[in-house]
Structures are given as structure tokens and as C-alpha cells.
């Protein structure tokens, strides 16, 4: 009898040890996944991995060079009209709610006043980085800014990016620096070409910048309760 109970005890000890190892294993695996997820949330990449949103002065830089696709390029002059930086520009005065829609499949941006489409432009969205979908709100408008990111052949450093409107929502924080802006370094609109932002022809970006809210005043304009930002809805999948 004693021998039998000893054998039984040995068996249950083995089972306990196995159960303990399994529990520890599960905790370890789930713990690692949880830590990875939290880390991802805390370190989500910016649209422009190096510059993010460092400089919010909105000021134009003189005598500078740009780098795109690893090559040095000239920065065009006269991209920014003096009116945009100094005067309050309000294009399209309306009582209707303004809303910007970006169709990733069509690579097109539509501007609405209420239910009426008032503008449509070709755009270039994320190719090297994903353009997040969802509904966002413009929180700051910069007449000019610098964007830097990528690496190797894909490195870029672009001063005087014209007519930038940063947007955010609960899932995509302001600090990640997603925006709609003019792009002077390519002319391949209608096809994906960005690191996650929404690129527009500078001439179209200026028109949209002056139409969208907050109403511009100076080099930098923050949205607020009295001057709220226009909603931006991004949808679809790029082809």
C-alpha cells in the first residue's frame, strides 16, 4: 500500500511540475507579445522618420539644397506666395462644413463644402510607408517646413516643403507627423510616391491650404476651439 501511494505521489508531482512549466511558458509567451505590442504603440514610426515634427516655425529657409532618392536637387524659388504667409487667407467662405476626402485607390483628393464637391486634385500617398486610413482633424498649418527621413538610397532631406497641414486622431498621434503638403521633388501625382504623407502639386496644395481650416494667419496656424481644423477622411487601398 505504502509503495502504491509513493508511486501515486511521484506521478502527481510530475504532473504538477509539467503544469507549472506550461503556466510559466504561457505567461512568458503572452508577456512577450504584450511587451512587443506596448513597445509598438510607444514607438510608432513617424511619417518622416528623422524630422518627425521638429520644426513648427513655418518659416522659409534661404539658400538650401534638398536631397531626394539619395540625390541632391535644387529647391525651387517662389513656391510660397507672400500672401499665404502674411495675410489671413480664406478661400471659399461658406457656412457649410468643410471636409477633405482622400481616396487611396484612385490617388485623388476631394474637398467638400457640405455635400457639394468644390475641388478635386491628384495626389501621391504612401509607397515607402503606409498612409493610415480613418478620419482625422487638421491641428496645425505650416506655410513651409523641413522633412527628413529614410535611409540609404531612400534617404531624403527636404527643406521648404510648402503648404503643410498636419492631421491626427486618437489612433494616429500628432507626434507622428502625418500631413497633406505640396511636393516639389517629383511630378508623378496619381501614383504612390510618399513615405506616408499625402503629396500634392504645390499649386494645388496652395489652393487647398487657403481653403482648409484653421483659417491661416502667418507662417504657423494652430487649430483651436474658435478656429477648428478641417476633417480629413482617408479611405481605400492603393492599387
Amino acid at each position, binding site marked *: 500500500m505504502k509503495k502504491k501511494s509513493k508511486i501515486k505521489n511521484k506521478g502527481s508531482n510530475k504532473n504538477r511540475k509539467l503544469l507549472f512549466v506550461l503556466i510559466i511558458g504561457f505567461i512568458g509567451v503572452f508577456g512577450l507579445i504584450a511587451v512587443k505590442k506596448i513597445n509598438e504603440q510607444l514607438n510608432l514610426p513617424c511619417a518622416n522618420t528623422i524630422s518627425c515634427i521638429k520644426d513648427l516655425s513655418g518659416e522659409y529657409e534661404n539658400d538650401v539644397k534638398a536631397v531626394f532618392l539619395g540625390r541632391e536637387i535644387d529647391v525651387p524659388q517662389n513656391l510660397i506666395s507672400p500672401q499665404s504667409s502674411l495675410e489671413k487667407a480664406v478661400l471659399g467662405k461658406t457656412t457649410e462644413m468643410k471636409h477633405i476626402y482622400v481616396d487611396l485607390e484612385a490617388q485623388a483628393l476631394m474637398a467638400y463644402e457640405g455635400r457639394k464637391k468644390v475641388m478635386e486634385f491628384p495626389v501621391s500617398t504612401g*509607397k515607402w510607408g503606409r498612409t493610415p486610413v480613418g478620419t482625422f482633424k487638421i491641428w496645425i498649418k505650416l506655410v513651409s517646413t523641413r522633412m527628413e527621413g529614410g535611409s540609404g538610397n531612400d534617404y531624403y532631406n527636404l527643406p521648404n516643403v510648402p503648404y503643410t497641414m498636419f492631421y491626427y486622431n486618437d489612433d494616429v498621434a500628432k507626434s507622428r507627423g502625418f500631413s497633406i503638403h505640396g511636393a*516639389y*521633388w*517629383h*511630378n508623378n*501625382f496619381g501614383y504612390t510616391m510618399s513615405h506616408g504623407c499625402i503629396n500634392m502639386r504645390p*499649386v494645388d496644395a496652395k489652393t487647398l491650404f487657403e481653403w482648409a481650416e484653421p483659417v491661416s494667419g502667418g507662417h504657423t496656424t494652430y487649430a483651436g476651439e474658435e478656429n477648428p481644423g478641417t476633417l480629413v477622411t482617408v479611405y481605400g487601398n492603393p492599387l
Partner: protein
Amino acid sequence: MNLSVGKLLLIFLSVMIATGIIIAFLIQTKNKESVSSQRSEARVAKVVPVVKAAEPETEESTVLSPDGQMSIVMKKVTNENSSVYVFSVNDVETNMSEEIYTTEGLGEEFSLSANSFSPDNRYVFVNQVASGSATALVFRTSGEEFGDEKYIDVLSVFDKKETGNTLIKITGWDSSTLLHLFTENDGTSGPSYWFEIPSGAAIRLNSK
């Protein structure tokens, strides 16, 4: 038969009258036919349209550079048997115009792309379809030539590279000197290329 002079005279007069009636009838009939013929001719003249030389049709399309400072204008003048294309580049601010290319376009169709201008406005391309093949002709906006050539024919240069892929579309400019080309291979989507201006180098891309 003894006919009196009076009877002979009567017969003669009767014949003369009968002949006169017949002649008068014949003349009237002829006149009627003549009038009818004239009326008919008049009707025909109304039906037949006046054939005029067809006036040439003119179509015009314009594309603005991305910074809004230049534009390219394509004028297509279509005559009965051919079309003449005239391309000119304009400075929006000064309104100065430079004609960069004129062609009769025999068996060719030209069109403008929304992405025609290079980002720095130094080059501009126009789409051409000839014999079912698509290409782009690249010009300097200044009107200067590439060596001895007025333009660079992208398809002609690309085909000489013998990549094994067929050029199907030129989408626009990835940078100031790089055109983005789409290709296909045996009916399926092929790799994309950069086509460098003015060297004509074709650089295969890993992404679309």
C-alpha cells in the same frame, strides 16, 4: 375626173389648214417639253448641295506645371486626311511662348499627360501612340536640342536596352531627371524602370 378650180382651191386650203394645225401642235409640244426640262433642271439644282472645302477642326489642350509657373499647349488641327500637332511651352507670368515641336502626325496620336513637366520645369514630355506602341517624346522646355536631336524618344532608347520587357506606360517624373516607366512581360505586369534624362539610362526598380 373633172375637178373645178373652186374644188381644187378648197382642197388646197384644207390641206394647208391641217398642216398648220399639225405644225402648231408640234411646236406647242416641243415648248412644253422644254419648260418641263428646265423645271426639272431647277429641281436638281436645288437638291445638289454646294460642295465647299471642309474647314479644319482645331482642338487645344493645356497642362500646367506643378508649380503653376509654366504650361504646355497642344494644338491639333485636323484636315480631311491628316492632323497637324503644334506644341508650345508658355511662361504663365510673362505670357511668353516657345514653340517646341510641330508634326503632321501621320498615323500618330499625341496627348498630354497631367505629369508632363519635370519637377524643375526643365523638361516636358508628350505621349505618342504610333502603330499601337506607346512612347513619350521628351523635350527641353527651353527649346534647345539634345545634341542633334530635337527630342528623346523614350521607347526607341528603352528598346535598345533589350530588357525583355515591353514599355506600356510613362506615368510621370520621380525626380527632376527620372521618368517612371511601367512595363509588361508576356501580358503580365513587368518591373518598373527609371528612365534618366538626358543619359537615357534605364534603371530597374524593385517596387512598382
